[in-house]
């Protein structure tokens, strides 16, 4: 096992002679069986669907090899890169801007096809070969609602505020990249983000 997340364990494994990642959703004994098995199989299925769709639209994501709904296991490509969370604070401002622009472009490509990641944080991005790979679509969904796109970006904004607070321009850079790539009207999305911020309690 190389990582234990909140809901899944990430294991290194081998598949047809290749080094691969197995993401296994773990049964949680704190919740009743009905909720547990529903969440595990539903999220596994949704995640696999979203990853393969994202890939077909040119977003860098891991290649899928196998899916087991009963056990909640997705077998996928092993990306030997660096987590953005770990490197973003240690970059030159220019490089940070470049990375954040690219993050924005990737998110826009998803949103162009109504794909919502659901948990865009810098822990869920891997830099490899100058490409941002998005991982963990476990809370994703597919919808054309501006609201969902706004929430998607708002999650990232909060992640920047909590983990990269010394570099307040990151989110601005993301929006720059987003604007460049997004087919719809970006101002509708940014307006939505402002709405969501205001809606947050005690703002």
């Amino acid at each position, binding site marked *: 096992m190389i990582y*234990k*997340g*909140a*809901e899944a364990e990430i294991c290194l494994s081998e598949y047809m002679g290749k080094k691969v990642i197995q993401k296994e959703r773990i049964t*949680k*004994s*704190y*919740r*009743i069986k*009905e*909720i547990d098995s*529903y*969440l595990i199989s539903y999220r596994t299925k949704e995640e696999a669907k979203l990853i393969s769709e994202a890939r077909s639209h040119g977003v860098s994501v891991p290649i899928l090899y196998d899916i087991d709904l009963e056990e909640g296991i997705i077998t996928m490509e092993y990306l030997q890169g660096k987590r953005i969370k770990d490197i973003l604070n240690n970059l030159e401002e220019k490089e940070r801007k470049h990375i954040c622009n690219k993050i924005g472009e990737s998110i826009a490509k998803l949103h162009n096809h109504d794909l919502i990641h*659901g*948990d*865009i*944080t810098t*822990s869920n991005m891997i830099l490899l070969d100058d490409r941002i790979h998005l991982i963990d679509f476990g*809370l994703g969904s597919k919808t054309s609602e501006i609201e969902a796109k706004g*929430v998607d970006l708002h*999650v990232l904004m*909060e992640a920047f*505020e*909590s*983990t990269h*607070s*010394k570099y307040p321009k990151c989110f601005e850079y993301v929006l720059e990249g987003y604007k460049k790539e997004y087919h719809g009207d970006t101002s509708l999305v940014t307006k939505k983000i402002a709405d969501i911020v205001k*809606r*947050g*309690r*005690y*703002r």
Partner: protein
Amino acid sequence: MICLGIEGTAHSIGVGIIQDVNKTCTVRSNLIKTYKPEKGGIHPREAANHHANYIADLIYESIKKAHIDFSDIDLVSFSQGPGLGPCLRTAATAARALALSLERPIMGVNHCVAHLEIGRGTIHRCKDPVLLYVSGANTQVIAFAEGKYRVFGETLDIGIGNCLDKFGRFMDMEFPSGPKIEKLAEKGKKYLELPYSIKGMDIAFSGLLTAAEHYVEKKERLEDICYSIQETTFAALTEVTERAIAHTEKNEVLLGGGVASNKRLRDMVKTMAEERGASFFVPKKDVCIDNGAMIAWLGYLMYDSGSRMNIEDTSIDQRFRTDMVDVTWRE
């Protein structure tokens, strides 16, 4: 140092006196009076009237119970926010009057941060927890990161306590409805599917509330509905807490707020903590619910680390956010 704290953010008015003994918190007295509406939820003005009626007596009683004199008080602190305006103003007015008449310094503190600090102050092994703070109005997952208390997840609509109370009101239960729902849920057997809404690390309850009301109209057993509400909302709360632990890489979980009294919620969070190899803490009941001692303790921490306030700085802030607090007392 001895500090008297006044809590008055919502339906409770509390006065607590604490003393620091080698930087840990000794609670000398902690008295709470709770306003109970005859019908419906909290009426802010009536709650404030209730607080105004009791505050003077509570202060006298708490001094007596702590076996001290007024002259022994070194600092007066109060809940500056977030909360209901009229209630906050009542508590703040009492604190100002007390501080001015005793000629002692005054300190306004953030209510949510106080819930976390009282855990660290009164539980020896609790050093750097992720707090799941669950009350009527508030539902937040809070942890210390990069010099501040940050909110890693929170409700996008209503607090969990408010969700339970609203369902209770729909069923003509008395306020607060949590305990009644907990009792009924113990007899529930059948799980009725309810929306499980998590967005990133945030959470939402209003859709679930509507769906639960539909089950009432469909004449499902009330015990089963209560059971399903608890299982669904608490599982989601436990999940966002676990996400915050994973994200911040901490290994302590602390519960706080009124809903932390619910045994099922405690069990779920405890199980989650055990499975992750994290420690699980719940403060004693009187310092876990809204209370004056936690306000006093945070006031002491701020004062001790060099924060000072003039009377002009003590205006209340109904929307006082957790991450607005300048954390001077932690590294």
